[in-house]
């Protein structure tokens, strides 16, 4: 059907082309001369369909993303349940100070940074290596098979992933746990971070490699041919053709990751926590949940959450700024 439409129309368009441009120029001039309400009316007349299409999404985001942002002012007030989202006496930085001075502050912050940095760095490197490896596979069938397998864990729920960790690491009976006699890996404070990032990489490495594979598939094959003529071996092709190709993608992902420096997936840490590993597994998000929802210290928890968001936002902007300066790549 589409080809019929295209065939019918191409000559018409070509014929109409000249007069079209002239009309557009006239419109632009006329538009600028128009008073604002008239311009607005004209805009709505032309585009009201598009507005109707985009408005529902805007309303949902407005309510469920922007109202909570507005409600962040509770962090600076004594929360009063009778006064709703924005009420209560203004107390300034009281709750921030309470958090900074509490003995748990250093612990929670260190845990968060330790877990997230390990995950960020490993989770950043692993997909690049996997993509470079998969890209070397000649056979399309094998390549497709490897991709299918490596993408799969991405869709498994966090609850199931943590259940699998518990099953495999269970002392005495688990697939891995039975090789560590006498020690319970799940309660180990030294291994919590490692278990966290290794399983995180296991689950997402395949999925996160897609974007690099997409970039690699756009390499002009003549580039490889030319490099081979010049005597480049397999490794040199990777070093001098493949890696430069994915460099812009790498920097964008690095910027986006930087915006998550203090974001450790709440669900997974929460589900992996137990009484024994708590000193190393309590992170900002789990602490916010415990304070806010479980202990009902609304203002205090909101302040901690806001602190977290601000640090993340700062790192994102910083990384974006550096990347813009260094490699001319940025997200905004």
């Amino acid at each position, binding site marked *: 059907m589409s080809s019929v439409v295209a065939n019918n129309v191409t000559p018409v368009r070509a014929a109409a082309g000249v007069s079209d441009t002239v009309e557009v120029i006239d419109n632009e001039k006329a538009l600028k001369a128009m008073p604002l309400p008239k311009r607005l009316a004209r805009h709505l007349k032309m585009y009201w369909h598009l507005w109707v299409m985009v408005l529902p999404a805007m309303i949902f985001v407005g309510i469920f*993303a922007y109202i909570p942002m507005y409600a962040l002012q509770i962090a600076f007030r004594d929360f009063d349940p009778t006064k709703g989202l924005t009420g209560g006496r203004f107390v300034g930085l009281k709750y921030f100070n309470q958090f900074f001075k509490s003995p748990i502050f250093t612990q929670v912050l260190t845990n968060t940074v330790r877990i997230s940095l390990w995950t960020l760095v490993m989770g950043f490197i692993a997909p690049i290596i996997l993509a470079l490896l998969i890209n*070397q596979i000649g056979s399309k069938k094998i390549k497709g098979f490897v991709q299918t397998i490596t993408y799969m864990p991405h869709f*498994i729920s966090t*609850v*199931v992933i943590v259940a*699998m960790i518990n099953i495999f690491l269970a002392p005495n*009976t688990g697939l891995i746990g039975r090789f560590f006699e006498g020690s319970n890996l799940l309660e180990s404070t030294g291994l919590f971070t490692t278990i966290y990032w290794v399983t995180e990489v296991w689950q997402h490495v395949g999925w996160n490699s897609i974007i690099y594979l997409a970039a690699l598939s756009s390499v002009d094959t003549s580039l490889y041919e030319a490099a*081979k003529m010049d*005597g480049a*071996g397999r490794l040199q092709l990777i070093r001098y053709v493949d890696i430069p190709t994915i460099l812009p993608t790498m920097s964008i992902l690095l910027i986006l990751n930087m915006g998550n420096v203090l974001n450790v997936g709440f669900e997974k840490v929460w589900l992996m926590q137990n009484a024994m590993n708590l000193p190393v597994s309590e992170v900002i998000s789990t602490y916010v949940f415990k304070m806010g929802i479980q202990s009902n210290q609304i203002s205090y928890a909101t302040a901690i959450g806001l602190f977290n968001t601000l640090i993340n936002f700062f790192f994102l902007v910083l990384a974006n700024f550096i990347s813009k300066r260094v490699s001319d790549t940025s997200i905004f």
Partner: protein
Amino acid sequence: MSAATSQGSVAPRLSGDEIPFNKHRRFKQQSVGDWIVDIIIALLVALIVLLILYPLWFIIIASFSDQGLVSTGKVTIVPLGFQLGGYAKILADSRIWLGYWNTIVYTVIGTALNMLVTMPAAFALSRREFKPRRIILFFFTFTMFFAGGIIPNYLLYKQLHLLNTMWVFILPVAVNVFNLIIARSFFETSIPEDLHDAAQIDGLSYGGYFLKIVIPLSAAIIAVIGLYYFVQHWNDYMTGLIYVRDSSKQPLQIILQNILLANQTQQGGAGTGGASMANQQQLADQIKYGVIIVSTLPLLVLYPFLQKYFNKGVMIGAVKG
């Protein structure tokens, strides 16, 4: 040309011209160094595939095996002591059915709403002549980097009377900005602009163009975005944990957590008299394996059908911010 040899090569290279009809020219041309690199790469890839596949495979075979053999490490490649006791218990457990039903309701209604809201918005934002789209897009993307967090959300849901209702699983996540951007990039790059010109000449409005021309051409992106939303709803654990107290409204993931992680199987499912403690423990173990399979089944069924669209879907969206 024949002088071109890579570092560390021993055998002289044959140029492509000397072996005109060889389909496997690439391999014939390689030096020994490249050949070794090839083998190392093949081994590494095989190892990675094995590392990812084996844990999944183990869960499957363990769910069908005699748990005595599983816990002593005898079950490795195929099921041993074939048993379906775990699955029988799971099918008889009303909690799992309730969780399953709740999750299906939330997922179906939620995904339908997601698509209805996201797709038209993505289309509107893909129209270059629609001048306000820059600022609207910023309105959306800003929320990816700055958010209120769980406490302000909680208070908002409380005011809107969403707590303890099914709607808390559906309405707050009606739009995922990441998915919106992916869909928008697809409309921008994969639908030929000629079609819009043609539609305009035929007198089609934006709505008509979207419904009659764009949607039929967008099967790939609808499949990918639909799957993303489906998985998001299916795997949602946090919403139930934080915003819902009523156990009759809890989704599958919360039930799963109760069974898998809180060790409640004994009191909940396997309270039959006569069985010894060891037997009960074994049954509980088998239920764990089985419940993982049962809860992941819908995704495993959908996966092969949608898999071919993945590369396209992720590729389009992720590079543009």
